[in-house]
């Protein structure tokens, strides 16, 4: 029943994009489109099949995803850790608050030249930039989550005389786990954005580089194939993380009401 409902709903949702694609194809056919900037859906599909067949798309996808994942783990991991420490220790928070507020507004893309100078081209530089981009948001989210842990629970751990480690693993971490996952979910989307940005502007690898090369070679069909593929990847990642979230933290998914 639920599956049938889902199918019905996806039909409704698919109506607009499918119509637009059909219209674009009709328009391209009618005008006999020959362009350096536009391509018909059919040409885009053909370009997609060709870059998929020669392996270049999959290779680029792996490069980008690997960098995004590594950057995500590094950035969210280090950021959350720092955020938890800041949330637990008033002293550390007071000492670092100003520094963080000063560093936080620096746009991560502004770091591309700096990191490139230090690390050159390659996966490493891309991972570091993604990690840096995710660091501060993760710090802020984890710190806020720790500070929102029910004070009563902290008193319970006081009364039970839990040590620092026990308090962290038995009270704080389980309490903020849903927020940490939320933070990871937001980070995953952002990581893909930063990865493609770095590849377009600086790093000669991955999907961003692919899309840029297609543009510079005046192959709009290939460019659009990359673009749609990047969108699809982002969509799949968020779909995956959403279903993981729904399975493990049902309470935190709005409107799901279980």
């Amino acid at each position, binding site marked *: 029943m639920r599956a049938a409902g889902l199918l019905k709903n996806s039909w409704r949702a698919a109506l607009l994009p499918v119509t637009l694609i059909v219209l674009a194809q009709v328009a391209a056919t009618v005008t006999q489109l020959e362009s350096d900037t536009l391509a018909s859906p059919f040409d885009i599909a053909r370009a997609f099949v060709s870059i998929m067949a020669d392996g270049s798309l999959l290779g680029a996808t792996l490069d980008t995803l690997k960098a995004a994942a590594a950057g995500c783990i590094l950035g969210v991991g280090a950021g959350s850790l720092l955020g938890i420490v800041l949330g637990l220790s008033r002293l550390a928070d007071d000492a670092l608050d100003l520094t963080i507020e000063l560093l936080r507004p620096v746009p991560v893309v502004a770091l591309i030249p700096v990191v490139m100078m230090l690390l050159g081209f390659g996966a490493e530089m891309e991972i570091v930039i993604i990690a840096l981009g995710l660091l501060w948001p993760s710090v802020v989210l984890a710190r806020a989550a720790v500070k929102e842990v*029910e004070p*009563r*629970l902290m*008193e*319970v751990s*006081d*009364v*039970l*005389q*839990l040590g620092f480690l*026990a308090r962290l693993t*038995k*009270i704080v971490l*389980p*309490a903020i*786990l849903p927020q940490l996952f939320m933070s990871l979910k937001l980070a995953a989307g952002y990581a893909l954005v930063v990865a493609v940005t770095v590849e377009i502007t600086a790093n000669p690898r991955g999907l961003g580089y692919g899309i840029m090369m297609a543009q510079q070679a005046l192959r709009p069909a290939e460019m659009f194939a990359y673009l749609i593929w990047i969108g699809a990847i982002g969509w799949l990642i968020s779909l995956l993380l959403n279903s993981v979230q729904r399975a493990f933290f049902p309470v935190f998914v709005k409107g799901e009401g279980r």
Partner: protein
Amino acid sequence: MVVTQLSTRPRHGEGNSTPASGEARIRIFDVTLSYGSLQIIGGISLDIAPGETICVIGPSGCGKTTLLRMLAGLARPTSGSVELDGSVLGGPNRSVAIVFQDYGKALLPWRTAAGNVSLALEARGCPGAERLAITREMLEKIGLGRHADKYPAEMSGGMQQRLQIARCLAQEPKVLLMDEPFGALDAMTRQALQDEVLGLVATTGATMVFVTHDLEEAIYLGDRIICLQPNPGRVGRIVDVRLARPRNQLLTRENPEFLRLRRELYDLIKDDHQ
């Protein structure tokens, strides 16, 4: 259950309900507590004997909860001292357990009933196999034996408060502090829990300090009732409760002494409000 009616013998000492300082489980000595220039507690002294049940009543804002938090080591007195078995209480201590009124916030929502009880055992480094047995025993004792695998969110308010009490008992406390623990429960559940707590305190020999705003509850449970007065919080009167134990919800509450005490406390509290 046989109820010995109208025995006026107190459980501790001969007539004198204030024990000598040497045998006190808790000794509160001239304790004050201020936040800035605002004095919350203004000089309270009290000795509590091992096994004694003390009920604390008083109008809101008289520092009942603050006093209890000081006994738990969660608040530090500005001056004076709280001693447990002769040594100064410098902070929280596992042999002093506290049952909070807001059970919903004091339980770990991600742990089952068994897991919540187990936390207290993990805290004192109890080995795994033993932990399981004690957890089961505690849940059994408080009437949650069949609900070991339920999460707090799946339990009623009364069950959740039972669970918090079970966790506190798992600490094997010498002192059990209770902060209006049954205030949010319905009358029937409250009475059932009053009797269960009395039974548990009697078998474990724990000393209990019970804060309540319900005069009848104070009389029903206590050996002595401390009436606090506000601004700043201080001891107004100490009333001995000479009612036989074990107590009985019907007989004890119909006892003329019970009614007399109720009248006395009612007048006392009323005066404080004027």
